[in-house]
């Protein structure tokens, strides 16, 4: 049927504020990633640590109902550190780290790398929205993935512990719930901005995974070697971004800096400053990267 046989109908309606365009950008990004079977495979793997903690708590609660010697129970709780304390959630966040990094590398290349690689950026920025809206939309999508892997399961463990022990736990340890959310926010801000900046720079999946791995695994090993093997100053550990988030996360969960292992560690404020600087650098780069020069080739 040709155009001449169909009638063009005008549209008369009210336009919404450009801020509303943030959600469609995030939604479409999420949809593109969630349609990949690979993502679900990685997500299932990433939940293995959660399941370990979940069933560990459940088994300990079950053991409580059996007539086992209290010493054995105490040692089991202490050894596994499934005691509902800040350390338990800190350990969970730490263990999730490797899978978060892998899942984000995959998601990042699809969420933002594709926009550069396939020229989708002009599609977005030629609309009545600003680069800020675009970035917030993409940030929101990455944030969903980060929190699906960290904050949400950690809050689920918090809820489970309270339900398995006593409802007083929720009130007495409300600061822990806030600490979990704060730790999640730190991870969300740092990882999302870093991922968006790297995806905008590298565009393709494999280079992104390689660079991401370098950043979180190679630099980690390098920092460890410099400080603990070669005896350099503890501040060299600051190049390990995951350790920086770990230190700030410890502070969020109310864990004393002196109890963090291995020692020595840089100060928490130093780690926070490094993370802040990284976020600022990423924001600056993203702002430059998606300027209007990119719109019309």
């Amino acid at each position, binding site marked *: 049927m040709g155009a001449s046989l169909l*009638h063009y109908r005008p549209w008369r309606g009210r336009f919404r504020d450009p801020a509303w365009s943030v959600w469609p*950008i995030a939604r479409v990004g999420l949809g*593109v990633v969630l349609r990949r079977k690979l993502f679900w495979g990685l997500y299932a793997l990433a939940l293995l640590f959660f399941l370990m903690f979940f069933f560990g708590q459940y088994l300990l609660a079950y053991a409580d109902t059996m007539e086992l010697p209290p010493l054995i129970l105490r040692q089991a709780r202490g050894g596994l550190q499934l005691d509902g304390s800040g350390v338990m959630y800190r350990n969970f966040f730490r263990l999730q780290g490797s899978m978060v990094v892998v899942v984000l590398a995959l998601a990042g290349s699809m969420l933002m790398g594709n*926009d550069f690689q396939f020229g989708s950026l002009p*599609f977005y920025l030629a609309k009545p*929205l600003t680069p800020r809206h675009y970035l917030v939309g993409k940030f929101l999508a990455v944030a969903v993935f980060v929190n699906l892997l960290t904050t949400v399961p950690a809050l689920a463990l918090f809820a489970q512990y309270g339900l398995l022990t006593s409802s007083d736990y929720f009130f007495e340890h409300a600061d822990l719930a806030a600490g979990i959310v704060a730790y999640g926010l730190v991870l969300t801000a740092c990882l999302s901005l870093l991922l968006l900046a790297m995806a905008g720079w590298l565009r393709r999946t494999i280079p992104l995974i390689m660079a991401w791995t370098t950043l979180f695994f190679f630099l980690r090993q390098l920092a460890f070697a410099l400080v603990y093997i070669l005896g350099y100053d503890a501040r060299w550990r600051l190049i390990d971004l995951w350790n920086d988030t770990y230190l700030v996360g410890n502070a969020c969960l109310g864990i004393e800096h002196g109890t963090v292992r291995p020692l020595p560690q840089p100060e928490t404020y130093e780690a926070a400053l490094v993370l802040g600087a990284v976020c600022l650098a990423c924001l600056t780069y993203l702002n430059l990267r998606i300027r209007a020069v990119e719109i019309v080739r």
Partner: protein
Amino acid sequence: MGLIDLDHVSRWYGSQRALCDVSLHLEPGRIGLLGPNGAGKSTLLKILLGLLEPSSGGGTILGHDLRRDGTLLRRAIGYMPEADALVPGLRGADYVALAGELYGMPRRQARRRAHEVLSYLDLEEARYRLLEEYSTGMKQRLKLAQALVHDPRVLLLDEPTSGLDPAGREVMLSLLLTLGREHGKSLLLSTHLLGDVERVCDTVVILHEGQVLSQGHVDDLRTRRHDCYRLQIQGDPSAYLEELRLEGATVFQDNRRGQLRVAVPPGWRTRTFFALADLHGVLLRGLQRDDEDLEALFHRVIEENGHHGR
């Protein structure tokens, strides 16, 4: 209210000048923006979309200030980019609906409107296909659909027939002509293909090296065409050619084997060729009308303004 008013707009990228003192007043209609690569068309489009600020000067599009009202003017405009600008993994209807939402339409209305526009552009059957499966012609129509979804008053079209076969090109040009003529859309067609401008537009702006070389009605441009003839002569042509020049004709081509291409002034009578040939003892063996096409005219306008075309 004019469609586009530009007042001494210049744009520099560092020391590189992209636009130089461009002043334009364009009324709503179908406007062709012509120019070779590097003429400044893309920079002008960026400025008209409110995505790039002029280094100096200013202007309005549909009364919206180019410097201040970027969001508002992009809402009034539908932009069809030259590059694919697709979102991989989406289906056609989702892509167009997403464009509607980004323009600020409520989601449900955006979806309904996407289906309407896709039907209008003859993509009804392809609307649930993944974008990666679309042919070049379908992608071009899809890009037009996303520019049209919010029913804008103005369409900025960047090389809309790029990559299309003759049939696809004809479909696209017909659509644009219909949108302009029957539905009152103003079109700004940025292209290097003069045929597209001749087919669709009523006004043309020629850009070269960041400057407006010519602006006016397409028909006016056509009247500036030279009436040309292709001649085949036998005998010594020198006196004959000299006489033609004295009569106001211009010899464009002379292959030294008797084949000439001659531009003649208005009111020229064909029999003058024969009379002058007879006078100078030259045998005129062939005479064929061979008017200058718009492309040749375009390059001549550039050369007449002291520039070198592509």
